[in-house]
Protein backbone atom coordinates (compact mmCIF):
# COMPACT_ATOMS: atom_id res chain seq x y z
CA UNK A 1 0.00 0.00 0.00
CA UNK A 2 2.63 2.52 1.13
CA UNK A 3 4.85 1.81 -1.90
CA UNK A 4 1.97 2.44 -4.26
CA UNK A 5 1.11 5.71 -2.51
CA UNK A 6 4.73 6.88 -2.65
CA UNK A 7 5.08 5.98 -6.32
CA UNK A 8 1.82 7.74 -7.14
CA UNK A 9 2.91 10.89 -5.28
CA UNK A 10 6.28 11.01 -7.02
CA UNK A 11 4.73 10.62 -10.47
CA UNK A 12 2.16 13.32 -9.79
CA UNK A 13 4.82 15.64 -8.39
CA UNK A 14 6.87 15.23 -11.55
CA UNK A 15 3.83 15.84 -13.73
CA UNK A 16 2.63 18.90 -11.84
CA UNK A 17 5.96 20.66 -11.40
CA UNK A 18 6.71 21.76 -14.97
CA UNK A 19 3.15 22.95 -15.42
CA UNK A 20 3.90 25.89 -13.23
CA UNK A 21 7.17 27.22 -14.45
CA UNK A 22 5.60 30.09 -16.30
CA UNK A 23 3.75 33.09 -14.98
CA UNK A 24 1.73 34.99 -17.53
CA UNK A 25 0.77 38.62 -17.87
CA UNK A 26 -2.00 40.50 -19.64
CA UNK A 27 -0.16 43.15 -21.67
CA UNK A 28 -3.31 45.02 -22.66
CA UNK A 29 -4.99 45.63 -19.32
CA UNK A 30 -2.76 48.60 -18.49
CA UNK A 31 -3.41 50.31 -21.84
CA UNK A 32 -4.55 53.94 -21.42
CA UNK A 33 -3.78 53.83 -17.69
CA UNK A 34 -0.96 55.98 -16.38
CA UNK A 35 1.97 54.18 -14.76
CA UNK A 36 4.95 56.18 -13.46
CA UNK A 37 8.27 55.03 -14.90
CA UNK A 38 9.94 52.73 -12.38
CA UNK A 39 13.42 52.60 -13.89
CA UNK A 40 15.17 54.44 -11.05
CA UNK A 41 13.49 52.38 -8.34
CA UNK A 42 14.29 49.13 -10.16
CA UNK A 43 17.90 50.20 -10.68
CA UNK A 44 18.20 51.08 -7.00
CA UNK A 45 16.80 47.70 -5.95
CA UNK A 46 19.04 45.70 -8.28
CA UNK A 47 22.14 47.69 -7.35
CA UNK A 48 21.29 47.16 -3.68
CA UNK A 49 20.98 43.41 -4.25
CA UNK A 50 24.23 43.34 -6.26
CA UNK A 51 26.01 45.15 -3.41
CA UNK A 52 24.65 42.60 -0.96
CA UNK A 53 25.99 39.67 -2.99
CA UNK A 54 29.37 41.28 -3.48
CA UNK A 55 29.69 42.14 0.22
CA UNK A 56 28.79 38.56 1.10
CA UNK A 57 31.28 37.12 -1.38
CA UNK A 58 34.00 39.53 -0.25
CA UNK A 59 33.49 38.29 3.30
CA UNK A 60 34.29 34.71 2.33
CA UNK A 61 37.58 33.06 3.10
CA UNK A 62 39.74 32.61 0.04
CA UNK A 63 38.20 35.60 -1.78
CA UNK A 64 41.67 36.42 -3.18
CA UNK A 65 41.58 33.20 -5.15
CA UNK A 66 38.02 33.63 -6.44
CA UNK A 67 37.79 34.37 -10.12
CA UNK A 68 35.39 36.93 -11.50
CA UNK A 69 33.38 34.12 -13.11
CA UNK A 70 32.88 32.53 -9.69
CA UNK A 71 31.63 35.83 -8.29
CA UNK A 72 29.30 36.06 -11.30
CA UNK A 73 28.01 32.60 -10.38
CA UNK A 74 27.17 33.91 -6.90
CA UNK A 75 25.27 36.80 -8.51
CA UNK A 76 23.41 34.30 -10.69
CA UNK A 77 22.50 32.16 -7.69
CA UNK A 78 21.33 35.21 -5.73
CA UNK A 79 18.78 36.24 -8.34
CA UNK A 80 17.70 32.81 -9.51
CA UNK A 81 14.66 31.08 -8.03
CA UNK A 82 11.96 28.62 -8.99
CA UNK A 83 8.76 30.10 -10.48
CA UNK A 84 8.40 33.04 -8.06
CA UNK A 85 11.44 35.28 -8.09
CA UNK A 86 12.18 37.73 -5.30
CA UNK A 87 12.72 40.60 -7.71
CA UNK A 88 9.41 39.87 -9.42
CA UNK A 89 7.56 39.71 -6.10
CA UNK A 90 9.26 42.94 -5.03
CA UNK A 91 8.11 44.68 -8.22
CA UNK A 92 4.57 43.43 -7.56
CA UNK A 93 4.55 44.59 -3.94
CA UNK A 94 6.88 47.47 -3.21
CA UNK A 95 5.39 50.95 -2.80
CA UNK A 96 8.54 52.25 -4.50
CA UNK A 97 7.35 51.14 -7.93
CA UNK A 98 4.12 52.03 -9.70
CA UNK A 99 2.08 49.28 -11.36
CA UNK A 100 -1.21 48.28 -12.90
CA UNK A 101 -3.50 46.91 -11.45
CA UNK A 102 -2.68 49.55 -8.85
CA UNK A 103 -3.75 47.64 -5.73
CA UNK A 104 -3.69 44.04 -4.61
CA UNK A 105 -7.51 43.95 -4.50
CA UNK A 106 -7.62 45.24 -8.08
CA UNK A 107 -5.10 42.55 -9.01
CA UNK A 108 -7.44 39.89 -7.64
CA UNK A 109 -10.33 41.30 -9.67
CA UNK A 110 -8.25 41.50 -12.83
CA UNK A 111 -7.73 37.72 -12.73
CA UNK A 112 -11.37 37.43 -13.78
CA UNK A 113 -11.31 40.18 -16.39
CA UNK A 114 -7.88 39.87 -18.05
CA UNK A 115 -7.35 38.05 -21.34
CA UNK A 116 -6.65 34.78 -19.50
CA UNK A 117 -9.65 35.18 -17.17
CA UNK A 118 -11.87 32.86 -19.19
CA UNK A 119 -10.86 29.39 -18.06
CA UNK A 120 -12.20 26.24 -16.50
CA UNK A 121 -11.59 25.16 -12.89
CA UNK A 122 -9.04 22.50 -13.89
CA UNK A 123 -6.95 24.77 -16.10
CA UNK A 124 -3.76 24.47 -14.00
CA UNK A 125 -1.92 26.98 -16.20
CA UNK A 126 -4.18 29.71 -14.84
CA UNK A 127 -4.06 28.67 -11.19
CA UNK A 128 -1.00 30.82 -10.66
CA UNK A 129 -1.27 34.59 -10.28
CA UNK A 130 -0.57 36.94 -13.19
CA UNK A 131 2.22 39.49 -13.21
CA UNK A 132 1.06 43.12 -13.00
CA UNK A 133 2.38 45.66 -15.51
CA UNK A 134 5.15 48.13 -14.71
CA UNK A 135 6.91 50.69 -16.89
CA UNK A 136 10.67 50.54 -17.29
CA UNK A 137 12.58 52.83 -19.64
CA UNK A 138 9.30 53.84 -21.28
CA UNK A 139 8.32 50.21 -21.98
CA UNK A 140 5.32 48.48 -20.43
CA UNK A 141 6.37 45.05 -19.16
CA UNK A 142 4.84 42.36 -17.00
CA UNK A 143 6.75 41.81 -13.76
CA UNK A 144 7.37 38.28 -15.05
CA UNK A 145 9.96 39.77 -17.42
CA UNK A 146 12.20 40.51 -14.46
CA UNK A 147 12.09 36.82 -13.59
CA UNK A 148 12.91 35.93 -17.17
CA UNK A 149 15.76 38.45 -17.19
CA UNK A 150 17.43 37.06 -14.10
CA UNK A 151 16.42 33.41 -14.13
CA UNK A 152 15.93 32.68 -17.82
CA UNK A 153 19.02 34.82 -18.40
CA UNK A 154 21.05 32.68 -16.01
CA UNK A 155 19.99 29.52 -17.87
CA UNK A 156 21.03 31.13 -21.14
CA UNK A 157 24.30 32.25 -19.55
CA UNK A 158 25.11 28.76 -18.24
CA UNK A 159 24.30 27.22 -21.62
CA UNK A 160 26.34 29.85 -23.45
CA UNK A 161 29.39 29.22 -21.30
CA UNK A 162 29.02 25.46 -21.72
CA UNK A 163 28.80 25.88 -25.48
CA UNK A 164 31.96 27.98 -25.44
CA UNK A 165 33.77 25.41 -23.32
CA UNK A 166 32.81 22.87 -25.97
CA UNK A 167 34.69 24.99 -28.49
CA UNK A 168 31.81 26.82 -30.12
CA UNK A 169 32.32 30.37 -31.35
CA UNK A 170 30.42 33.27 -29.78
CA UNK A 171 27.95 33.28 -32.68
CA UNK A 172 27.41 29.50 -32.44
CA UNK A 173 27.00 29.65 -28.67
CA UNK A 174 24.47 32.47 -29.05
CA UNK A 175 22.50 30.48 -31.58
CA UNK A 176 22.55 27.45 -29.30
CA UNK A 177 20.98 29.37 -26.42
CA UNK A 178 18.41 31.10 -28.61
CA UNK A 179 17.37 27.79 -30.14
CA UNK A 180 17.07 26.23 -26.69
CA UNK A 181 14.93 29.16 -25.55
CA UNK A 182 12.64 28.87 -28.55
CA UNK A 183 12.35 25.12 -28.02
CA UNK A 184 11.45 25.62 -24.36
CA UNK A 185 8.66 28.04 -25.29
CA UNK A 186 7.45 25.67 -28.00
CA UNK A 187 7.28 22.84 -25.48
CA UNK A 188 7.76 22.55 -21.72
CA UNK A 189 7.68 26.23 -20.69
CA UNK A 190 5.19 27.62 -23.16
CA UNK A 191 2.69 25.76 -25.30
CA UNK A 192 3.03 22.59 -23.24
CA UNK A 193 2.11 24.21 -19.93
CA UNK A 194 0.27 27.55 -19.95
CA UNK A 195 -0.50 27.23 -23.67
CA UNK A 196 1.29 30.51 -24.39
CA UNK A 197 4.48 31.00 -26.39
CA UNK A 198 6.04 34.34 -25.56
CA UNK A 199 8.83 35.77 -27.73
CA UNK A 200 8.91 38.71 -25.29
CA UNK A 201 10.00 36.28 -22.57
CA UNK A 202 12.78 35.09 -24.85
CA UNK A 203 13.94 38.68 -25.37
CA UNK A 204 14.17 39.16 -21.61
CA UNK A 205 16.06 35.87 -21.27
CA UNK A 206 18.56 36.97 -23.91
CA UNK A 207 19.12 40.37 -22.31
CA UNK A 208 19.59 38.66 -18.96
CA UNK A 209 22.34 36.58 -20.51
CA UNK A 210 24.08 39.73 -21.78
CA UNK A 211 23.87 41.16 -18.25
CA UNK A 212 25.56 38.09 -16.75
CA UNK A 213 28.16 37.99 -19.53
CA UNK A 214 28.86 41.68 -18.94
CA UNK A 215 29.71 41.08 -15.30
CA UNK A 216 33.20 39.84 -16.20
CA UNK A 217 33.56 40.31 -19.95
CA UNK A 218 33.54 43.00 -22.59
CA UNK A 219 35.11 46.45 -22.77
CA UNK A 220 33.70 47.58 -19.46
CA UNK A 221 32.95 44.65 -17.13
CA UNK A 222 30.53 45.40 -14.32
CA UNK A 223 32.68 43.66 -11.71
CA UNK A 224 36.29 44.55 -11.01
CA UNK A 225 38.97 43.60 -8.53
CA UNK A 226 39.22 45.85 -5.52
CA UNK A 227 42.11 44.87 -3.31
CA UNK A 228 41.44 41.33 -2.18
CA UNK A 229 37.80 41.39 -3.18
CA UNK A 230 35.51 42.67 -5.90
CA UNK A 231 33.37 45.75 -6.40
CA UNK A 232 30.84 47.08 -8.87
CA UNK A 233 32.78 49.04 -11.45
CA UNK A 234 29.57 50.63 -12.70
CA UNK A 235 25.99 50.54 -11.56
CA UNK A 236 23.32 48.38 -13.12
CA UNK A 237 21.06 50.36 -15.43
CA UNK A 238 17.91 48.67 -16.75
CA UNK A 239 17.95 51.10 -19.71
CA UNK A 240 20.81 49.09 -21.19
CA UNK A 241 18.65 45.99 -21.38
CA UNK A 242 14.92 46.71 -21.58
CA UNK A 243 13.67 47.00 -25.14
CA UNK A 244 10.25 47.50 -26.69
CA UNK A 245 10.27 43.79 -27.56
CA UNK A 246 9.68 42.99 -23.87
CA UNK A 247 6.13 44.37 -24.21
CA UNK A 248 3.82 41.49 -25.14
CA UNK A 249 1.24 43.90 -26.56
CA UNK A 250 3.87 44.89 -29.15
CA UNK A 251 5.84 41.66 -29.50
CA UNK A 252 2.77 39.47 -29.17
CA UNK A 253 2.57 35.91 -27.90
CA UNK A 254 1.19 32.84 -29.63
CA UNK A 255 -1.36 30.45 -28.16
CA UNK A 256 -2.13 26.79 -28.49
CA UNK A 257 -5.61 25.87 -29.74
CA UNK A 258 -7.09 25.34 -26.29
CA UNK A 259 -5.83 28.68 -24.94
CA UNK A 260 -6.61 30.58 -28.16
CA UNK A 261 -10.23 29.50 -27.98
CA UNK A 262 -10.47 31.21 -24.59
CA UNK A 263 -8.26 34.23 -25.28
CA UNK A 264 -9.58 35.24 -28.71
CA UNK A 265 -13.02 36.45 -27.53
CA UNK A 266 -11.33 38.60 -24.90
CA UNK A 267 -8.97 40.07 -27.51
CA UNK A 268 -11.91 40.91 -29.77
CA UNK A 269 -13.29 42.97 -26.91
CA UNK A 270 -10.18 45.16 -27.05
CA UNK A 271 -10.36 46.09 -30.75
CA UNK A 272 -11.79 49.55 -30.09
CA UNK A 273 -8.66 50.44 -28.13
CA UNK A 274 -6.45 50.13 -31.21
CA UNK A 275 -7.57 53.61 -32.34
CA UNK A 276 -7.18 55.16 -28.90
CA UNK A 277 -4.69 58.07 -29.06
CA UNK A 278 -2.73 56.61 -26.13
CA UNK A 279 -2.25 53.29 -27.93
CA UNK A 280 -1.45 54.97 -31.27
CA UNK A 281 1.17 57.18 -29.61
CA UNK A 282 2.72 54.26 -27.71
CA UNK A 283 3.04 52.18 -30.84
CA UNK A 284 4.61 55.08 -32.72
CA UNK A 285 7.17 55.52 -29.92
CA UNK A 286 7.87 51.80 -29.90
CA UNK A 287 8.37 51.65 -33.68
CA UNK A 288 10.93 54.46 -33.46
CA UNK A 289 12.94 52.48 -30.91
CA UNK A 290 12.50 49.05 -32.46
CA UNK A 291 15.48 47.19 -33.90
CA UNK A 292 15.74 43.57 -35.00
CA UNK A 293 17.09 41.41 -32.19
CA UNK A 294 19.03 38.12 -32.49
CA UNK A 295 15.94 36.25 -31.22
CA UNK A 296 13.69 37.88 -33.82
CA UNK A 297 16.21 37.10 -36.54
CA UNK A 298 16.32 33.43 -35.54
CA UNK A 299 12.53 33.22 -35.19
CA UNK A 300 12.17 34.63 -38.71
CA UNK A 301 14.62 32.01 -40.05
CA UNK A 302 12.64 29.25 -38.35
CA UNK A 303 9.36 30.62 -39.72
CA UNK A 304 10.85 30.67 -43.23
CA UNK A 305 12.01 27.08 -42.76
CA UNK A 306 8.53 26.07 -41.62
CA UNK A 307 9.77 25.09 -38.16
CA UNK A 308 7.97 27.83 -36.28
CA UNK A 309 4.49 29.24 -36.61
CA UNK A 310 4.29 32.94 -37.47
CA UNK A 311 2.94 34.39 -34.23
CA UNK A 312 1.83 37.67 -35.82
CA UNK A 313 -1.48 35.93 -36.60
CA UNK A 314 -2.23 36.16 -32.86
CA UNK A 315 -1.60 39.91 -32.67
CA UNK A 316 -4.46 42.16 -31.65
CA UNK A 317 -4.37 43.84 -35.07
CA UNK A 318 -4.65 40.52 -36.92
CA UNK A 319 -7.36 39.30 -34.56
CA UNK A 320 -9.41 42.46 -35.01
CA UNK A 321 -9.01 42.27 -38.80
CA UNK A 322 -10.33 38.72 -38.65
CA UNK A 323 -7.02 37.35 -39.93
CA UNK A 324 -6.23 35.24 -36.88
CA UNK A 325 -6.12 31.43 -36.94
Amino acid sequence: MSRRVIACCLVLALVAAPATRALETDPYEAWTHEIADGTDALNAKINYELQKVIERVNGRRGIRRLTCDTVADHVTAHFRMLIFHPIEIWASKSPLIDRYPPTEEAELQSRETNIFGNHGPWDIGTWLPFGPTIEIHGVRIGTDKLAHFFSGGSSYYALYRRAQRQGKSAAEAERTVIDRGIFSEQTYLGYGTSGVMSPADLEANYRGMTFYLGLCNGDSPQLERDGDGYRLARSFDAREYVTVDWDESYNNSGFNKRRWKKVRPRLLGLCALLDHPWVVAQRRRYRERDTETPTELRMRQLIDEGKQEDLSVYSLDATCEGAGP
Partner: protein
Amino acid sequence: MGVETSSGEFTALKPKPILGPAALLAGCLLAAPSYGAEDGAERSLMELVREEDERLKVRWDLFPRVRAGYPQSISAGLGVVRYRLPESWECVTTCPFRGLTLQVEPGIRGIQLSAGFGTLVAEKRRKARFLSDVHLAFGVKGVLLHRWDSSALDSAERTFAGIELSHTVTRINFSIGTLRRLERVQGGDWIVTAGMGWGF
Protein backbone atom coordinates in the same frame (compact mmCIF):
# COMPACT_ATOMS: atom_id res chain seq x y z
CA MET B 1 23.81 64.42 -20.37
CA GLY B 2 25.93 67.02 -18.69
CA VAL B 3 29.15 65.51 -20.03
CA GLU B 4 27.81 65.42 -23.53
CA THR B 5 26.68 69.03 -23.31
CA SER B 6 29.93 70.34 -21.93
CA SER B 7 32.00 68.33 -24.36
CA GLY B 8 29.86 69.56 -27.23
CA GLU B 9 30.31 73.18 -26.21
CA PHE B 10 34.06 72.73 -25.85
CA THR B 11 34.40 71.26 -29.31
CA ALA B 12 32.31 73.99 -30.87
CA LEU B 13 34.40 76.76 -29.28
CA LYS B 14 37.80 75.17 -29.84
CA PRO B 15 39.03 77.77 -32.41
CA LYS B 16 38.83 80.44 -29.68
CA PRO B 17 41.37 79.37 -27.03
CA ILE B 18 40.36 81.95 -24.42
CA LEU B 19 36.71 81.00 -24.53
CA GLY B 20 37.46 77.28 -24.47
CA PRO B 21 38.44 76.86 -20.81
CA ALA B 22 35.73 79.33 -19.76
CA ALA B 23 33.13 77.31 -21.64
CA LEU B 24 34.46 74.11 -20.10
CA LEU B 25 34.25 75.65 -16.62
CA ALA B 26 30.75 76.94 -17.30
CA GLY B 27 29.75 73.54 -18.61
CA CYS B 28 31.14 71.86 -15.50
CA LEU B 29 29.35 74.31 -13.22
CA LEU B 30 26.10 73.75 -15.07
CA ALA B 31 26.60 70.04 -15.07
CA ALA B 32 27.59 69.75 -11.41
CA PRO B 33 24.20 70.43 -9.81
CA SER B 34 22.45 68.00 -12.13
CA TYR B 35 24.93 65.24 -11.33
CA GLY B 36 24.57 66.05 -7.65
CA ALA B 37 20.79 65.89 -7.84
CA GLU B 38 20.82 62.60 -9.77
CA ASP B 39 23.27 61.09 -7.33
CA GLY B 40 21.17 62.36 -4.43
CA ALA B 41 17.98 60.91 -5.89
CA GLU B 42 19.70 57.58 -6.48
CA ARG B 43 21.06 57.61 -2.93
CA SER B 44 17.67 58.32 -1.44
CA LEU B 45 16.07 55.55 -3.47
CA MET B 46 18.83 53.21 -2.32
CA GLU B 47 18.09 54.25 1.24
CA LEU B 48 14.40 53.52 0.76
CA VAL B 49 15.20 50.12 -0.75
CA ARG B 50 17.51 49.39 2.17
CA GLU B 51 14.86 50.47 4.67
CA GLU B 52 12.28 48.26 2.98
CA ASP B 53 14.68 45.34 3.08
CA GLU B 54 15.78 45.80 6.67
CA ARG B 55 12.67 47.06 8.46
CA LEU B 56 10.73 43.84 8.57
CA LYS B 57 7.78 43.00 10.73
CA VAL B 58 7.42 39.61 12.38
CA ARG B 59 4.02 38.05 11.83
CA TRP B 60 2.26 34.71 12.28
CA ASP B 61 -0.29 33.35 9.85
CA LEU B 62 -2.25 30.13 9.54
CA PHE B 63 -2.12 27.67 6.67
CA PRO B 64 -4.19 24.55 5.92
CA ARG B 65 -3.55 21.04 4.64
CA VAL B 66 -5.96 18.27 3.71
CA ARG B 67 -4.42 15.07 2.43
CA ALA B 68 -4.82 11.40 1.77
CA GLY B 69 -1.90 9.18 2.52
CA TYR B 70 -0.21 6.55 4.56
CA PRO B 71 -0.50 5.93 7.48
CA GLN B 72 -3.09 8.51 8.50
CA SER B 73 -5.49 7.77 5.66
CA ILE B 74 -7.48 11.02 5.39
CA SER B 75 -6.27 13.91 7.51
CA ALA B 76 -6.84 17.64 7.89
CA GLY B 77 -4.28 19.94 9.43
CA LEU B 78 -3.79 23.49 10.51
CA GLY B 79 -0.38 25.06 10.72
CA VAL B 80 1.16 28.36 11.62
CA VAL B 81 4.17 30.02 9.99
CA ARG B 82 6.29 32.70 11.61
CA TYR B 83 7.80 35.03 9.03
CA ARG B 84 9.25 38.48 8.50
CA LEU B 85 8.19 40.75 5.65
CA PRO B 86 8.22 44.50 4.92
CA GLU B 87 5.48 46.26 6.85
CA SER B 88 3.81 47.69 3.77
CA TRP B 89 3.26 44.32 2.09
CA GLU B 90 -0.38 43.30 2.53
CA CYS B 91 -0.03 39.88 0.90
CA VAL B 92 -3.60 39.81 -0.39
CA THR B 93 -1.77 38.51 -3.47
CA THR B 94 1.47 36.55 -3.67
CA CYS B 95 4.07 36.96 -0.94
CA PRO B 96 7.00 34.81 0.16
CA PHE B 97 6.55 33.48 3.71
CA ARG B 98 9.68 31.92 5.13
CA GLY B 99 10.25 30.72 8.62
CA LEU B 100 9.37 28.38 11.44
CA THR B 101 6.28 26.25 10.95
CA LEU B 102 4.20 24.35 13.49
CA GLN B 103 1.38 22.05 12.45
CA VAL B 104 -1.18 19.74 13.97
CA GLU B 105 -2.92 17.26 11.69
CA PRO B 106 -5.52 14.81 13.01
CA GLY B 107 -6.58 12.03 10.70
CA ILE B 108 -8.71 8.90 10.57
CA ARG B 109 -5.86 6.62 11.70
CA GLY B 110 -3.68 8.94 13.71
CA ILE B 111 -2.62 12.42 14.65
CA GLN B 112 0.57 14.16 13.59
CA LEU B 113 2.39 17.06 15.19
CA SER B 114 5.22 18.70 13.33
CA ALA B 115 7.68 21.56 13.64
CA GLY B 116 10.12 22.68 11.04
CA PHE B 117 11.16 25.24 8.50
CA GLY B 118 9.17 26.19 5.44
CA THR B 119 9.19 28.54 2.51
CA LEU B 120 5.74 29.26 1.15
CA VAL B 121 4.77 31.45 -1.76
CA ALA B 122 1.15 32.07 -0.99
CA GLU B 123 -1.59 34.63 -0.83
CA LYS B 124 -4.23 35.52 1.70
CA ARG B 125 -6.81 36.84 -0.75
CA ARG B 126 -9.32 38.48 1.54
CA LYS B 127 -8.56 36.54 4.70
CA ALA B 128 -6.52 38.53 7.18
CA ARG B 129 -4.45 35.82 8.88
CA PHE B 130 -4.90 32.79 6.68
CA LEU B 131 -2.85 31.70 3.65
CA SER B 132 -5.71 30.46 1.53
CA ASP B 133 -3.75 29.76 -1.66
CA VAL B 134 -0.33 28.15 -1.40
CA HIS B 135 1.17 28.33 -4.88
CA LEU B 136 4.57 26.91 -4.10
CA ALA B 137 6.15 25.65 -0.91
CA PHE B 138 9.02 23.58 0.39
CA GLY B 139 9.41 22.43 3.94
CA VAL B 140 11.27 20.08 6.18
CA LYS B 141 9.58 19.10 9.41
CA GLY B 142 10.33 17.09 12.49
CA VAL B 143 7.30 14.87 13.00
CA LEU B 144 5.66 13.12 15.93
CA LEU B 145 2.95 10.72 14.80
CA HIS B 146 0.59 8.84 17.09
CA ARG B 147 -1.22 6.12 15.24
CA TRP B 148 -4.41 4.38 16.39
CA ASP B 149 -4.64 2.05 13.47
CA SER B 150 -7.05 -0.82 14.00
CA SER B 151 -6.18 -3.10 11.13
CA ALA B 152 -6.43 -6.85 11.67
CA LEU B 153 -2.67 -7.35 11.31
CA ASP B 154 -1.55 -4.64 13.65
CA SER B 155 -3.92 -3.20 16.19
CA ALA B 156 -1.66 -1.65 18.79
CA GLU B 157 -1.42 2.07 19.29
CA ARG B 158 2.01 3.29 18.36
CA THR B 159 4.02 6.51 18.34
CA PHE B 160 6.63 7.42 15.74
CA ALA B 161 9.11 10.24 15.33
CA GLY B 162 11.06 11.28 12.25
CA ILE B 163 11.25 13.77 9.44
CA GLU B 164 8.94 14.73 6.61
CA LEU B 165 9.61 16.63 3.41
CA SER B 166 6.69 18.59 2.09
CA HIS B 167 6.34 20.22 -1.31
CA THR B 168 3.41 22.15 -2.69
CA VAL B 169 3.03 23.21 -6.27
CA THR B 170 -0.12 24.98 -7.51
CA ARG B 171 -1.82 24.19 -4.19
CA ILE B 172 -1.25 20.44 -4.58
CA ASN B 173 0.82 19.09 -1.73
CA PHE B 174 3.14 16.11 -1.84
CA SER B 175 4.74 14.79 1.30
CA ILE B 176 7.12 11.98 2.08
CA GLY B 177 8.74 11.06 5.34
CA THR B 178 10.51 8.43 7.30
CA LEU B 179 9.61 7.75 10.93
CA ARG B 180 10.94 5.43 13.63
CA ARG B 181 8.78 3.81 16.25
CA LEU B 182 9.48 5.17 19.71
CA GLU B 183 8.44 2.05 21.65
CA ARG B 184 11.22 -0.54 21.81
CA VAL B 185 9.96 -3.63 19.95
CA GLN B 186 11.51 -6.21 17.68
CA GLY B 187 11.23 -5.57 13.92
CA GLY B 188 9.06 -3.08 12.04
CA ASP B 189 10.74 -0.10 13.63
CA TRP B 190 10.71 2.15 10.59
CA ILE B 191 7.86 3.28 8.35
CA VAL B 192 7.79 5.44 5.25
CA THR B 193 4.97 7.96 5.10
CA ALA B 194 3.57 9.58 2.00
CA GLY B 195 0.60 11.67 1.08
CA MET B 196 -0.97 13.96 -1.42
CA GLY B 197 -3.49 16.68 -0.86
CA TRP B 198 -4.19 20.39 -0.83
CA GLY B 199 -2.38 23.12 1.09
CA PHE B 200 0.99 22.71 2.78
